[in-house]
């Protein structure tokens, strides 16, 4: 599967870079270039339309392992900035989502009044909100990680609310009746019944939430290129036609997202083991 993708990619690179290679060749007065040479040079352009896999991975390698981590040219440095915003936003979003879900489940009035707003919030395109948040907060002197984190939070609280409302409502009436026979307080019903029942839903929501948190952070960075981050690398790469740099940043972002989702999955397995889930 992977091999097929790589093959297709190389083929696409030849095809997409061919017009520019033709131009280069005619400028250099090269004629009758053999196909193999032609293909090899399409894979080695400085600013290709579609960089070839080995160019991208060489760039990923050079910009992470091959570069001092404190350098502004290091992708690891930029990934760290993005990761910070992502994690802060994810934490805030999860807290907000859980808090809203608790209110919705325990209070009928907030159920009816909050839910429509929560759904409406997600119909506004994030690309419209992000610059407003970043520029708006920048105008009052708040810059750096927080504006990005707010955008991440804005995206990631939603799956958590939806999942946790469902999760906190899963206890069956007989399990709730049992609590009632013990004259349990609302807090005890929450902590000993509703919360543990909702844990599987929490993890499912957090897996979605952490991935879109990363998207939120990158989108936030696109609106302010002073602070650095993978989004800024994407942006400057596209200003300068540095396609290799764009693709390298994309790959790092995708790898980061995968790593974060796997980390949440790992936490989920730990929780499952403690809560006696079937192996």
């Amino acid at each position, binding site marked *: 599967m992977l091999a097929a993708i790589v093959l297709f990619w190389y083929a696409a690179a030849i095809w997409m870079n061919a017009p520019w290679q033709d131009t280069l060749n005619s400028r250099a007065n090269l004629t009758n270039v053999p196909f193999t040479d032609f293909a090899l040079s399409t894979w080695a352009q400085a600013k290709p339309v579609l960089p070839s896999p080995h160019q991208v991975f060489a760039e990923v390698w050079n910009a992470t392992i091959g570069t001092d981590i404190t350098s502004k040219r290091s992708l690891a440095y930029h990934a760290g900035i993005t990761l910070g915003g992502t994690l802060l936003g994810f934490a805030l979003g999860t807290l907000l989502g859980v808090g809203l879900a608790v209110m919705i489940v325990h209070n009928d009035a907030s159920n009816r009044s909050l839910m429509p707003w929560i759904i409406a919030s997600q119909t506004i395109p994030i690309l419209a909100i992000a610059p407003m948040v970043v520029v708006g907060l920048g105008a009052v002197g708040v810059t750096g990680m927080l504006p990005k984190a707010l955008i991440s939070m804005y995206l990631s609280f939603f799956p958590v609310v939806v999942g946790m409302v469902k999760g906190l409502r899963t206890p069956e009436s007989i399990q709730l*009746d049992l609590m009632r026979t*013990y004259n349990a307080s609302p807090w005890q019903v929450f902590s*000993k019944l509703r919360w543990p029942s909702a844990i599987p839903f929490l993890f499912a929501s957090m897996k979605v939430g952490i991935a879109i948190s990363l998207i939120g952070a990158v989108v936030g960075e696109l609106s302010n290129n002073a602070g650095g981050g993978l989004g800024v690398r994407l942006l400057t790469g596209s200003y300068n036609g540095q396609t290799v740099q764009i693709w390298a940043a994309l790959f790092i972002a995708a790898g980061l997202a995968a790593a974060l989702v796997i980390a949440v999955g790992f936490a989920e397995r730990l929780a499952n083991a403690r*809560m*006696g889930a079937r192996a």
Partner: protein
Amino acid sequence: MSLAASVVSAKNLGLTFSTNDGDVIALSDVNLEIGAGEFVSFIGPSGCGKTTFLRVIADLEQPTSGSITVNGTSPSDARLNRAYGYVFQAPALYPWRTIEQNVALPLEIMGLSDRAARIQRTLELVNLTGFEKKFPWQLSGGMQQRASIARALSFDADLLLMDEPFGALDEIVRDHLNSELLKLWARTKKTIAFVTHSIPEAVYLSTKIVVMSPRPGRVTDIIESDLPAERPLDIRETPEFLRLAARVRDACAPATRTRSRACASFSTARPCPFSSCSPRSCSSGTPPPSG
């Protein structure tokens, strides 16, 4: 004196559920006294209001007419005083808690001390020693139900409400638990209200058998047992036992022959006299044609 010792006292008690397709009279005009230390069984076909009556005692349902007291107070006050332990028809164990943690649940909620000893004692009582660290899914259905009984016993309430606790168990386990329950009752002087579908079980356990009938749910007979307090399992072969069982069978099978045949069948496995009968059709007054 007899009034003071009354644990449950129902007078003209009625409960009607309003549902989307009309009212369901789950209980009508129930008059019943349960004295301290009695073992009262409720027997009757599905949908006759046995569960509903237990739930009214437990303050899980509100009666719509008549009155009821529990320990001389309202069911609500009795519940707030944690006056009873309730064993539901399904085990209702919390799947994320081990067996001992499930038994510990009421102890945690009520803030009782001495947890380890209580857990050990009640698990021993239901023969689950050695399964403390297992999760519910690792146990058979019968063991899960025993764990739920242990949970209801762990905080030592004086009144036990048990809704068909042994309904899902096989004969042998059931016999064993029946005699264990009798011993526990004799030793602790608890008051027990016990719902069952089995006539032999009701006769074996009870000091008083309440026979109920559906459509509308009501008490049709209350039979005091004349069996001795000491009851080994083989008392079930004695003429006294069989005579009492026959009386209960007659009581829950009034007049018609269909009913009589139907009722006789609920000493066996089938819970409802009409095999295709759901509680809904029972209560709507349209029994399916019986063959």
